[in-house]
């Protein structure tokens, strides 16, 4: 039986279980003289039966779907006498067997391969049949068990609510699981990377050239993993971005909060917010095809030499992207500054700008700093703009007109395309990912802490 049909059948069984439980409860109640003689409403008896029927069977089915391929694979490969030692060789062999079983493989086939393919088809069909049989038996058996347990005294609502509550808790833990998943995935691969490349070389090395040599005498494929040029490149692009975003975003927020009339505010704010909703790939296209050539031509016209993948173009566009982020966060904290502080300053005769500069901004400073830190972490982790507009060459330079590369660009270039999971080249991407995760985590943590602490001050 195919899995979708099985799911449909299970769903039908669950509905039947609900209906039966419900009707049983109603008929029992009638003989007792009304629903109030039951310990719960009839629908809860229905739900109780349905949960017993569906939950274990669905869990079984889910586990089966996750593990069956791996088990079949192991059994099929074990049946072959002279299988290759390498994992990649085994993968190839297994793919051949699968194709043969599906009838896609044209050409000569060895009898051994054919028998393995037959074995594979046999196991497949057995697994499908067994899965259907077991889950259906489990569902109907447990539904019958639940129906037997139904009685007017059964506290069905409490039992159902307990299950629901556990489901809610499980969903809330998804966030923790995600963090753990991120940590485990980047940590393990990074540890494998650091077995072949020392941590100190990675953190302090000045030369980045991840191409590994295929032959010993190959030119230019030394495989150097010094990540300092990437870090400086990332810092430079982010610094340019912040140089644009912080003053513009902050001044825009101040103007909107302190000066603008209601109409201007209701008009200008949504327009600025549009910038936040534009996908980053669009900014990347804009940076690579419009801003970068413009900057190159401008630099050439004043006699400077600029790369067509300059850090300036990427940073500038990234800054534009971050403007609404800075402005909306600053707007929030500026609005949270109590009006009495402003009134006091104005009453002492200061002008509006003096009030803002000497009273409002200092009072809102922690919140603004928190917002800026969040923006920095955003800039460091931004990928598409730099992938499309910044270069690939790992230059160690301080000139914004030259091309630099960043951590995220390297992660993308190392992992897109064909890859094997045992070369340091691929694993290096995970080490870079770990650096990225840790640095943004620290920045976020400080920022959230600062913002939270500040909020408590005026509440």
């Amino acid at each position, binding site marked *: 039986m195919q899995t979708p049909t099985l799911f449909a059948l299970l769903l039908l069984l669950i509905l039947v279980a609900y209906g039966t439980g419900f009707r049983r409860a109603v008929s029992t109640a009638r003989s007792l003289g009304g629903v109030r003689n039951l310990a719960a409403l009839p629908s809860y008896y229905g739900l109780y039966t349905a949960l017993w029927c569906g939950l274990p069977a669905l869990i079984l089915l889910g586990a089966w779907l996750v593990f069956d391929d791996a088990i079949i694979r192991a059994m099929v490969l074990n049946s072959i006498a002279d299988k290759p030692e390498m994992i990649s060789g085994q993968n190839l062999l297994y793919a051949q067997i699968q194709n043969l079983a599906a009838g896609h493989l044209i050409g000569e086939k060895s009898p051994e391969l054919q028998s393995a393919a037959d074995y594979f088809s046999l196991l497949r069909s057995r697994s499908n049949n067994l899965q259907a049989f077991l889950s259906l038996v489990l569902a109907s058996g447990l539904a019958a068990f639940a129906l037997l347990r139904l009685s007017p005294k059964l506290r069905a609502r409490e039992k159902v609510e307990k299950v629901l509550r556990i489901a809610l808790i499980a969903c809330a833990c998804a966030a923790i699981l995600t963090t753990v998943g991120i940590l485990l995935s980047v940590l393990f691969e990074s540890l494998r990377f650091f077995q072949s490349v020392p941590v100190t070389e990675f953190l302090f090395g000045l030369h980045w050239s991840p191409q590994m040599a295929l032959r010993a005498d190959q030119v230019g494929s030394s495989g150097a993993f010094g990540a300092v040029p990437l870090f400086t490149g990332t810092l430079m692009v982010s610094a340019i971005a912040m140089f644009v975003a912080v003053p513009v975003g902050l001044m825009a927020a101040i103007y909107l909060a302190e000066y603008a009339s209601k109409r201007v505010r209701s008009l200008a704010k949504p*327009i*600025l917010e549009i910038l936040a*909703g534009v*996908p980053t790939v669009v900014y990347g296209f804009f940076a*690579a095809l419009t801003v970068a050539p413009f900057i190159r031509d401008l630099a050439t016209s004043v006699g400077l030499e600029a790369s067509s993948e300059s850090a300036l173009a990427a940073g500038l566009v990234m800054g534009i992207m971050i403007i609404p982020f800075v402005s909306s966060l600053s707007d929030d904290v500026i609005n949270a500054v109590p009006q009495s502080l402003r009134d006091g300053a104005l009453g002492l005769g200061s002008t509006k*700008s003096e009030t803002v500069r000497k009273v409002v901004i200092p009072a809102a400073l922690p919140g603004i700093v928190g917002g800026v830190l969040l923006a920095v972490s955003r800039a460091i982790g931004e990928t598409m703009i730099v992938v499309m507009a910044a270069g690939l060459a790992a230059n160690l330079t301080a000139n914004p007109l030259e091309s630099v590369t960043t951590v*995220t660009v390297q992660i993308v270039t190392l992992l897109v395309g064909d890859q094997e999971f045992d070369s340091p080249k691929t694993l290096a991407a995970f080490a870079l990912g770990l650096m990225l995760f840790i640095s943004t985590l620290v920045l976020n943590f400080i920022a959230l802490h600062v913002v939270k602490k500040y909020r408590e001050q005026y509440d």
Partner: protein
Amino acid sequence: MTDLTQAQVRERIEKGLASRHRKEKLFRGLGIGSIAFGILAVVILFTDIISKGSGAFVQTAIQLEVHYDQQVLGIDKVDDESLTWANFTGVIRQSLRDRFPSVAGRSDKRELYTLISSGAPFTLRDRLAENPDLLGKSERVWLSADDDVDTFVKSLKDSKEGFRGRTSDQKAGWIEQLLESGELKKRFNTTFFTNGDSREPEQAGIRAALMGSLFTLLVTLALSFPIGVAAAIYLEEYAPKNRWTDLIEVNINNLAAVPSIVFGLLGLAIFINFFELPRSAPLVGGLVLTLMTLPTIIISSRAALKAVPPSIRQAAMGMGASRMQVVFHHVLPLAMPGMLTGAIIGMAQALGETAPLLMIGMVAFIVDVPTGVTDPATVLPVQIFLWADSPERAFMERTSAAIMVLLSVLIVMNTSAVLLRKKLERRW
């Protein structure tokens, strides 16, 4: 200071007044300038994309007198098998030679053949399959032109010379001849909306990417909305205030700010390497985007739950409802509009996301339109990324057009979120 008379103080204040007012004006000007800069950025971005991309919605087509000659086609009846082998390219070449009889010599002829798109034989095949009576007869058909012709014709209106690129003087002459006789026109580019990706710009379309985006978003919505709402209900209505719930909260806030590419690394290491799910599939893309949008949905759902006044809960509890009944019968329906707005915004975020999908192999060159969540697929932003890398000028036009489609979908989503909030929001 104390020795100053009132008049002296006044004099000092008035002396500084002019410069203080000047500073005030400057400060104000800076504020206006910042806002103007932001608005200018929006305007430049949009006009740039629209001016580059609007051309892709029309396409150049050439009218040819086509003779479905059995001999040239090499078939004598119309059925599935013969259509597969029939030589439609030969038919097109024949009609091109008939149209320009003066062209002689191999290299000239070869150049002549490049006027028509290499996808045109398929158009003829479909026509013949639909109408088998045409075999052996002639008809006039509009066939799409090659992308070089397309680019050249479109650039003619900007300058007299036009953008030549690979187009030679001879070819330009043919094109002008066709233009004058009305056998060359620009028509609406339906190919762009019905085809998958292609190496030939004139045959490339966004259909496959759109369907890929749709399937990915469906998976994301189906997973992230229920899980996010359930998590929000637990945290807002049930969770005791202790270390564990604090940890969950800090976690959610941090995850909301983790760079999206890190989620891609997670997807690659766990879903693809560990669970061996298929590469390039919308299923895996949806899973990764679920994890990414979950914090957004949880945070907005919590805000929606918080906005429901406690009096509702107390009233329901006073009537003897259990806690679960209070939440599911009373609080949740009232908080639903807010949750839906949050979900739409989360989905808009997921739709525009590119980086994590690059990690899990959704950058493949996909020609076929995906039909399910496990088919290899790509999504609209990734398609934009792929096309942006292509050297052909015609691809730049199509990239901008794809961006316009993406942005319009996003604008529709965000506007509907705003409208939904306005319409259903209740002030207590």
